[in-house]
């Protein structure tokens, strides 16, 4: 038996392919949106994995250090390191800020780390990790920096000594690693004018500048101009020791909050990007509906244009199921072309997106099935119209 759908497609090949390409671009956008979401999840997980920590100790009752502000004293790590089951404890500071890279403003997450300790970038692809205590940086390759570049952050210049890969924040901003002391200064210290004004205000306060207490004012000023806070302490647990027990210990004795990897994944993936995922979900639904409407409209129009032929086919004995199959096959063919174009488009344009777009094979498979289902559903209207065509329309007026 002749495949009527294939012949009809062949007859209008140009129009059909162009329509498929148009639909494909829409499917490409849909797959990319899914990729953006997957990228956010992957970035969130990558941040967690890259830190190498088993537990994040943060300010009590906060979701820090990334999802909520958290500030704790930087000497706490010593007592945390003494807890049973803790193999390593390290201070870290995180700060999202705008830096100037080669004349352009780039949004980055600044990470203050102790060289050689937890929290370092997992993959340094060029140069070396941080070794000195001041004024050097390791940047994610997406920040646009090269080895040897100088980067101005607040009052100081930093030399880029290493480039890292897949070191982005949970929101996809490239990370720049600098020594912890520098990060603390960047995060907590004020500019010179503010410091001068603050010193004057403190000196004018009789309670802090008593004539009979020499050294009090200097001590107060010193405490104001040095920072002893960090955002979190990263803990590595002794192999075999349950992180949940350490977490419970921290909560019970240190009046701090500790998050395990699973907790942190829940915070970064489920909570922090929950609104974004709903937003993307809405986009996906709208795009699916728009795609379905386009396929339905095209197939319906194609069917209406064939009414006379369908009447003739029915009159000469073609079964309804053959006519329905012809329309369904055309809708599915349109979906196949659209899906292929969409997949190729998404692969081609994904690297040009500023944030990580992860095209997941599972999403691709789901998109393939979804496209075919949407196309099949979209053909229902046209099939109904075709089945209503009266074979008598082929005869007379």
């Amino acid at each position, binding site marked *: *038996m*002749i495949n*009527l759908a294939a*012949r*009809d497609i*062949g*007859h*209008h090949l140009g129009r059909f392919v162009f329509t498929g390409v148009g639909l494909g671009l829409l499917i490409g956008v849909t797959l990319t949106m899914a990729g953006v979401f997957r990228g956010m999840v992957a970035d969130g997980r990558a941040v967690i994995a890259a830190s190498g920590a088993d537990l994040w100790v943060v300010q009590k009752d906060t979701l820090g250090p990334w999802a909520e502000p958290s500030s704790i004293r930087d000497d706490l790590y010593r007592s945390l390191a003494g807890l049973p089951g803790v193999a390593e404890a390290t201070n870290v500071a995180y700060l999202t800020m705008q830096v100037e890279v080669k004349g352009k403003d780039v949004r980055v997450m600044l990470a203050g780390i102790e060289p050689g300790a937890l929290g370092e970038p997992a993959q340094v692809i060029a140069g070396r990790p941080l070794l000195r205590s001041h004024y050097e940086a390791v940047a994610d390759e997406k920040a646009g920096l090269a080895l040897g570049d100088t980067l101005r952050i607040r009052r100081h210049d930093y030399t880029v000594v290493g480039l890292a890969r897949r070191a982005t924040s949970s929101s996809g901003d490239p990370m720049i690693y600098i020594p912890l002391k520098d990060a603390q200064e960047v995060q907590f210290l004020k500019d010179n004018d503010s410091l001068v004004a603050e010193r004057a205000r403190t000196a004018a306060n009789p309670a802090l500048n008593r004539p009979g207490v020499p050294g009090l004012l200097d001590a107060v000023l010193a405490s104001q101009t040095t920072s002893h806070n960090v955002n979190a302490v990263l803990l590595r647990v002794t192999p075999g020791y349950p992180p949940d027990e350490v977490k419970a210990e921290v909560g019970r004795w240190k009046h701090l909050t500790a998050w395990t990897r699973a907790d942190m994944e829940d915070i970064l993936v489920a909570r922090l990007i929950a609104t974004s995922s709903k937003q993307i979900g809405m986009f996906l639904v709208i795009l699916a509906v728009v795609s379905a409407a386009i396929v339905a409209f095209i197939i319906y129009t194609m069917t209406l244009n064939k009414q*006379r*032929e369908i009447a*003739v*086919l*029915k*009159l*000469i*004995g*073609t*079964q309804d199921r*053959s006519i329905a199959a012809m329309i369904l096959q055309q809708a599915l063919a349109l979906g196949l072309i659209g899906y292929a174009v969409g997949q190729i488009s998404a692969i081609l344009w994904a690297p040009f997106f500023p944030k990580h777009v992860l095209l997941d094979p599972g999403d691709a498979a789901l998109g393939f099935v979804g496209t075919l289902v949407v196309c099949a559903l979209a053909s229902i209207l046209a099939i109904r119209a075709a089945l209503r065509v*009266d*074979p*008598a329309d*082929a*005869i*007379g*007026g």
Partner: protein
Amino acid sequence: MTTDKDIAIRLTGLTKTYGSGSTAVQALRGVDMSIRRGEVVGLVGPSGSGKSTLLKCLGAVIEPSSGHIELGGEAIFDDRAGGWQIDDLRALRRDRIGFIFQAPYLIPFLDVTDNVALLPMLAGMSNDEARTRARELIEALDVGHRIGVRVSMLSGGEQQRVAIARSLVNHPPVILADEPTAPLDSTRALAVVRILNEMAQRYGAAIIVVTHDEKIIPTFKRIYHIRDGRTEEEAGEGREIA
């Protein structure tokens, strides 16, 4: 002498009423017709006289209100026996009735051969066999040189010949031709009628040609005039076509 065996199609007291009550329209008011195998008859009448309705009833596209239709001696419609006597009307149309329309109405996305071969394929014949049979007919109708060409590339006369081939390909006992010469000039119109006569003779089909084309009416040996839903039979001139 004509025997019952020679009768391809017989209609007795066929009526068709559209609607009901005060809005009812009686399109056919008791049509009697009888056409032999190999015979080509004209069905002539003004617009609105019931030509198309009669054709649709004969083509098993609409159901008559009453009467009797016999095809090759077999009752296919009998109001006293409950209406259609055949369950699968599509198969009846496919296998036992050929259709030629005012315009060729070929399937534009099929080539010449497949437009003709589609019917036997629908009837279950293998693609190769159906195409062989289609090509034989296409050759017989002098469009063999256009085999494999898209139907949109054919002239009007060529398209109508392909449509005739399609109507004949399943060797139906009856062919219904609805103004088959309407879009053609007189030379081509007469050529189509000549072909219909030859095909009727060759394949033994009874052909009913609905027309009000003055050029071809004199060629029929027998003509049914239809007016206000009733038919009157008269002998035609049966003029030879050069």
